[in-house]
């Protein structure tokens, strides 16, 4: 797997997210209150809302457009809503964060 450095955990506020620009669109990288880090496509399965802009609670984010709640762990919509967003592997090495590029390449191919 091809790990690409994207920065450090302190670049992301707790219970917040930052975006990583890629050729296939933005990836939202989340940091929870407990310092877990997750990466998912920044694109709500409902109407494409930027999930990175949502409120982060537990290991989930509420989309800012229509309040869908997406699990950061599985990418799946919670509750009655159905849909899923792609999750991207993240590796945390001390402070540094990496995402797996192969996952990107395979989608591009």
């Amino acid at each position, binding site marked *: 797997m091809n790990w690409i450095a994207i920065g450090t955990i302190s670049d992301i506020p707790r219970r917040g997210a930052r975006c*990583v620009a890629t050729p296939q669109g933005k990836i939202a990288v989340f940091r929870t209150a407990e310092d877990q880090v997750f990466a998912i496509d920044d694109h709500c399965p409902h109407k494409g809302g930027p999930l990175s802009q949502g409120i982060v609670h537990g290991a989930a984010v509420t989309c800012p457009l229509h309040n869908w709640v997406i699990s950061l762990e599985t990418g799946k919509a919670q509750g009655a809503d159905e849909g899923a967003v792609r999750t991207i592997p993240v590796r945390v090495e001390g402070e540094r964060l990496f995402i797996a590029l192969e996952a990107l390449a395979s989608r591009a191919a």
Partner: protein
Amino acid sequence: MTEKLVIIGNGMAPGRMLEYLLEQAPGRYQVTIFNAEPRVNYDRIMLSPVLSGEKAYEEIIIHGDGWYIANGITLYKGHKIVAIDRAVKTVTSDHGVTEPYDKLVIATGSVPFIIPVPGHDLPGVLTYRDLDDVQAMLLAAQSRAKAVVIGGGLLGLEAAAGLNSQGMDVTVLHVMPTLMERQLDPAAGYLLQRAVEQRGIKVITRANTQAITGNGKVERVELADGTVIPATLVVMAVGIRPNAALAREAGIAVNRGIVVDAGMRSNDPDIYALGECAEVNGQVYGLVAPLYEMARVAASQLDGNEAAAFVHMDTPTKLKVTGIDLFSLGDFAEGEDRQEIVLRDAAAGVYKRLVLKDDRIIGTVLYGETADGAWFNDLKKKQTDISEMRDTLIFGQSYQGGAPLDPMAAVAALPDDAEICGCNGVCKGKITGAITAKGLTSLDDVRAHTKASASCGSCTGLVEKLMVLTIGVKYNPAAVQPMCGCTTLGHDEVRRLIKAKRLKTIPAVMQELEWKTSCGCAKCRPALNYYLVCDWPDEYADDYQSRFINERVHANIQKDGTYSVVPRMWGGVTNAAELRAIADVVDKFEIPMVKVTGGQRIDMLGIRKEDLPAVWADLGQAGFVSGHAYAKGLRTVKTCVGSDWCRFGTQDSTGLGIRIEKFMWGSWTPAKVKMAVSGCPRNCAEATCKDVGVICVDSGYEIHFAGAAGLDIKGTEVLGLVKTEDEALEHIVALTQMYREQARYLERIYKWAKRVGIAEIKRQIMDDGEKRKAYFDRFVFSQKFAQVDPWSERVSGKDKHEFRPMASVGFAQAAE
């Protein structure tokens, strides 16, 4: 003259008695001890750890040889007293030592009960009583052969666990259906059996031992049902009985044990008995706590304090087997007059049961998690009425008081001087006092007598809870809609509790009010953030991560993820320079859409998030500040041209509108607040469908509020007429502050007003000058911290991370 005190037995009870006596009356007695065991006083309770190898004998000694020497006590080790001569007051040992006494203490303890089955006297059959037994078992265990423990009570299980950890193959035979049936109910007995079996110990219940057989030594145990269990060691641990033979032979009254009064004195006034051999009020005891209590009483009596008396106590049972947590106390049989509370956690192997009678704990069984045993014991001992904490009692002490699971407990934990009704300044004690003293049973009664919840009504939920707490089920409160799935509390209760408990951070609210989730949800977090901003304007640090994106980046998110930007145009008035600046920004950033809003200002739509700070910088150059078009806060004050231009205008409506907007901008409110000022009753500024509106008339300013022109359409209510612009401002600000302090998050003014009542709002704002002034002052105070232009803050670098991607990756790779 020093009296002679002789003690028969050197177990834990007389040992403790001597400690008390030496402290209270040093030198009063010359003490002689006869110990049938050839050793000093050791901690018999710790025999199990010695058996399992976790402790050595040396570690369980209570009083070493030096202690006896230092205290001038003569200790005869291995001397068994065979006779007491009460006539001449002497005792004689099996080694022929005769010792006179003035006072005699019999502490001969107990003897293990031996089941009189055939073969019970074969070599290899042991009891579990003293260090000799333990050493014999340790010797037998070296063979790593098979052992049978008869008896599935406390001692038997500890013996079995010890032998098992010494490498023996152990089977426990228990005659009853479940283990430790005297201390545990069947459910806990089942869990215990499972845990014991998981250690590799076999358990046979309903096992009726018929014979122990073997050729010259133990070889097998035979049960009544024909089962044969091979064994080289049999440990009998089926119970103990008081060792009272010596006393009986001496003619001292003996029933099950040596009969003593509450002062531990036998029917011979110079002879005391204590420990497992003594019988007080028909009871004999085997656990250490009551034995130590006997020791305390006996020492006081020997010191001449005849009032010292032993009182019966239930003592918790704990199993001393590493890894098995078990606690049992009191009476736990079911009965019609008893209720029980049970908690089970199957996955964790936890079982807890409390048996209650008349709202008091009478029995407790804890398995798997016993930390709260002491607390339950204390509640039981003190006969504490647990009805108020009944719902959370089983969860233990840490769930009481400060951090209740149950909303009721939060209210119960409030001190009497906690303010419940802010409108009328009524504290908890006054409400509960009135309920009790006047026998109030309805909310209306409480309102009539105390005024609590008689005004804005936001404390109604709390008052209702107080009624339930005070008079119980006689009061049935209306159900409160919880804020969200994270709590059972409603908005009003959360707001009141934030004030009453002085909660100043979101984590504090969640902790103290027992949020069910670790960090809330997208519904409750913004609400809590607002409540805290409103209630503690100078102390609370705004939590941006709990704000909706629009308030976090000070622009409105659009469906494609771009943003719209609306600069403030005070009162809807602009000029050429401002319009030119807007035009330049639109060109420079290629803003695709420019639109005039309903609130008399200009909206620029389709701005990329990354461009926001640059857009704001350019707008700021022209003097623009944020229009807060995204905020739950003051939006616009729409105006008409008023008396300056209009031939019908009665007052300077534009000027008043600008003045209000400049005074109130930046304030956060429960929901958005839109205002308007019209210069005459023709109402060109459409003030009569706004949250707050002003209609200027010749005689002054008519203040309106609680209009709506969105989801609902509703004309405003009239608050009242005031004469001057200053008064108009004060009234509007006070009204807004009242709304800020009382409304639920996202509740517009018209909904709040409907809930609270138009009359009540008029009373507080129009009629009560003092109250109005106080609202006004609190708003002014809060504005000191709120009136900061968020755009210029961000132009100068605040929250930079919000507007930049963290990284750009993969472009090179994709190009390859």
